[in-house]
């Protein structure tokens, strides 16, 4: 009896696929799970594995466009095959509908929870923001087979902009589909929850296993009692890396952790320290390792955007220097009082932000955006501040900074920095800035050429403050000097404006009374 293979459902909005290439020819002998052909949707290309072993008969040729569910080919079990071969086919057949009903990835051979009548809720990635098309599953707080409660946080998702916690949409037993580290597009299947069930649900099949069908179903189930069990070699490697077995997704049979899984596992930051200490404690060991690590979504996006800005704008940088003495004097004179009154320290950021807001008002093109063939000017100043967060660079925004007092700016900076450190910034808090400040000075940078934070058109780089010999009124004096850099998009900002903008900022900082007098 030939098995018909149909186009599987590959995603919510996809209704048809194109047969891109056949890897096998008509009449070929194919094995179970061998890749037969490549299918293309308008979103992605994916491979179609054989659902059984046998002789291939191709129905749809290359270039054909097929709706979901249409027959692509059929596989005929080899005539006169030995008994074991026949039994493979027989077993594959009942599994087939499950495979077809779902997305292609392998581990979806879910044994559709045979004994339980409860509803199975599919948990999908929600739309989290306008421009976000995919998320990375950063960590699962629950394991497959665990009971979860409504609204309990089951995993953390990471988009290129933010990390957010994902709560259970129902109470029941969890079955993880997308393992930690996998990238899932919006609307993609994350997990299933068997509503109302209580762990351990494994109780159902094997206990009564007197006939083979039941136990076979158990074998096919995505997680088992052995999921996450490391092999002897894997256990040693994980211990040496300081990684708990439950932090690793096992790729072995039944989710077992293989030696390779352990070799590829990357330690999470908090536990790593102890293992490093142990590893260097004694005796000879290999110190010349290399490590491969997948880029996080955030890192990939940062990388892509930075290159795009370099390629698509006419970016250049202008420099100036600021004598920080007046601001520093002011600060040391009032910092205690300021702190007492406002409950927040008086830093340099407030002076810079304030000075920039004044300058932006005077040079509106620096506070603009390009949208196609039009320029968008803002009569408000939403200042983005680049902050180094544990997972990489983030850029939260101080809204309408021009209306804020120095204290208001300082407390906003503290609030956003704390959230950035804890990965708690929302998308809202990170979008829509009109101008960016970046401070490489905190790490000791003397001078740099920052890259514009698109679609903005200018960015100011602050640097370290160094005592330098400068000439004031014909005398060489020592002054605390900071170099400033303004990178700008020459397409809409002319040299005159950019340079004047920076000079204006310099002027305001070297004589802060101007901020008060508005001159």
């Amino acid at each position, binding site marked *: 009896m030939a098995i018909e293979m149909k186009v599987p459902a590959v995603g919510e909005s996809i209704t048809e696929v194109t047969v891109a290439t056949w890897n096998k020819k008509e009449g070929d002998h194919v094995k179970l799970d061998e890749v037969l052909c490549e299918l293309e949707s308008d979103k992605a290309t994916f491979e179609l594995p054989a659902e059984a072993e046998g002789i291939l008969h191709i129905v749809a040729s290359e270039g054909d466009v097929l709706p979901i569910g249409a027959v692509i080919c059929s596989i005929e079990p080899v005539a006169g095959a030995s008994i074991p071969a026949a039994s493979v086919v027989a077993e594959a057949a009942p599994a087939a509908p499950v495979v077809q009903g779902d997305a292609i990835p392998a581990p979806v051979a879910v044994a559709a929870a045979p004994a339980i009548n409860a509803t199975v809720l599919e948990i999908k990635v929600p739309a989290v923001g306008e421009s976000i098309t995919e998320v990375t599953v950063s960590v699962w707080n629950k394991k497959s087979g665990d009971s979860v409660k409504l609204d309990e946080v089951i995993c953390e998702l990471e988009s290129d902009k933010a990390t957010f916690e994902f709560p259970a949409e129902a109470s029941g037993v969890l079955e993880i589909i997308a393992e930690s580290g996998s990238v899932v597009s919006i609307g993609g299947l994350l997990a299933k929850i068997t509503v109302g069930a209580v762990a*351990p649900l*494994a*109780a159902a099949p*094997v*206990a009564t*296993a*007197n*006939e*083979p069908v039941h*136990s076979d179903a*158990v*074998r096919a189930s995505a997680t*088992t*009692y*052995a999921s996450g*069990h490391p*092999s*002897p070699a894997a*256990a*040693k490697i994980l*211990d*040496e890396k300081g990684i708990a077995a439950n932090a690793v997704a096992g790729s*072995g*049979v039944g989710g*077992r952790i293989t030696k390779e899984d352990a070799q590829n596992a990357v330690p999470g930051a908090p536990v790593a320290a102890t*293992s490093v200490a*142990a*590893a*260097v*404690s*004694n*005796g*000879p*060991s290999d110190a010349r390792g290399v490590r491969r690590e997948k880029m996080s979504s955030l890192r990939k996006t940062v990388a892509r955007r930075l290159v795009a800005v370099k390629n698509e704008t006419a970016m250049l940088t202008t420099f100036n220097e600021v004598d920080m003495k007046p601001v520093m004097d002011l600060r040391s004179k009032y910092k205690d009082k300021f702190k007492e009154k406002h409950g927040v320290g008086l830093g340099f950021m407030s002076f810079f932000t304030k000075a920039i807001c004044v300058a932006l008002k005077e040079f509106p093109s620096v506070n603009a955006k390009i949208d196609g063939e039009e320029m968008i000017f803002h009569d408000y100043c939403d200042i983005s501040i680049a902050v180094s967060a544990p997972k990489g660079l983030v850029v939260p925004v101080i809204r309408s900074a021009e209306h804020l007092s120095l204290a208001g700016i300082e407390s906003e900076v503290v609030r956003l920095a704390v959230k950035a450190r804890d990965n708690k910034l929302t998308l809202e808090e990170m979008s829509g800035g009109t101008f960016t400040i970046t401070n490489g000075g905190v790490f000791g940078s003397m001078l740099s050429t920052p890259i514009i934070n698109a679609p903005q058109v200018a960015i100011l780089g602050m640097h370290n403050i160094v005592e330098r010999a400068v000439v004031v009124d014909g005398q060489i004096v020592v002054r605390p000097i900071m170099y400033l850099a303004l990178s700008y998009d020459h397409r809409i900002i002319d040299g005159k404006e950019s340079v004047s903008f920076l000079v204006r900022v310099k002027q305001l900082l070297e004589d802060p009374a101007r901020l008060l007098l508005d001159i």
Partner: protein
Amino acid sequence: MQEFDVIVIGSGPGGYVSAIRAAQLGFKTAIIEKYAAMGGTCLNVGCIPSKALLDSSEHYYNAVHHFEEHGIDIAKPKVNLKQMIARKSSVVEKMNGGISFLMKKNKISTFHGLGSFDSAKTVKVTKEDGSSETLSGKHIIIATGSKPTILPFIPVDKKRIITSTEALKMTEVPKHLIVIGAGVIGAELGSVYARLGSKVSFIEFADSMIPTMDKTMGKELQKSIAKLGAEFHLSHKVIGASVKGSEVTVKAENSKGESVEIKGDYCLVCIGRRPYTDGLNLAAAGLVADERGRIAVDEHTLQTSVSGIYAIGDVVRGAMLAHKAEEEGVFVAEVIAGQKPHINYNLIPGVVYTWPEVASVGRTEQELATAGIAYKEGSFPFKALGRAAASMDVDGLVKVLADAKTDEILGVHMIGARAADLIAEAVVAMEFRASAEDIARMSHAHPTYTEAMKEACLAATAKRALHS
């Protein structure tokens, strides 16, 4: 004073393996052995010589009892015990040389003499000629092993009342050998002499042979050894023994409290072994042995209470088995190198080299019942196996215990031809937490003894063995 990264005291299977692993890891390593020959109890007076005699006696037994049925007619064979012992000795000698070679190959410095602690970082080696030298080591591994336990009311004279050591170099085949203790060593050596024609009487305090193993194993083994003409006094408590000329009298009390007297020409005492740390001068290192003579070690590192001193094998807790000591030897060397090795003590197989052999790994039925774990049992007898029938080795069975819910294999117990080798499959499966059905679905070559494992797993999965 010579300085080393690692000093190993004792060259048994734990000690010499530990030294090799330490050397592989780049440590400057020394090994100290009290006797002239390397290899410890296992090689000199344990595993290897007993297996040599077990096989010789098995050949003899087959020649007498089975050759005719196989269609081999020979003149009535005679036991040449002198030659048997000589062959055993040559096997041991050859292996002694092998270990010395391995030490040289790995550039391990060998010191012959009694090692004793001078301090927590130094060990004095006193040689046979009385001279001594002191070595210092950053890390010291105690691998001094064990000796047979001797009870005060049994006067072991090593001539008529003997231990396993003497039983391996007998000059005559006993007429009536009384074996006190029907555990692993008693069962093995008792069956050697039973095959060679001795009448063998076992006296055992527990109510079965090999009492620490799964009950079915003890029962089946007793059946097989009874076929050799042995008799059993189970649930008997030995209260004394005496020698008069060439006659040994052992007095015991049965379960009803009645006294029993058994007379024979030799008495073999196999009531267990004790950790051996005599002459080691533990006090100088700041160490004390516990009330059973063992050295306490940390579970995760096998380090003793003194930093830099480790202990492995029979001197520490756990089963007194050569392969357990080997695992610990490797373990400690890797711990010293900053690695994090593992030992799964639940999966160290236990083996009795009688014929049929007994082997087991994991939990017994009794342990599972006590722990309240619901389990399924599947057994398969060797007599239903084509290979066993062809070879006329039909005694025994394989018993698989699997979790009632998950089908995970929790224990495997087997008695039968080559069980000692067959158990390896169970260890591998259990290290990966395989289910009974996993094994049942793997191809096992036909005809082999391993098919019994597959069939027992089928039986454990869902009572669907194919050939029973």
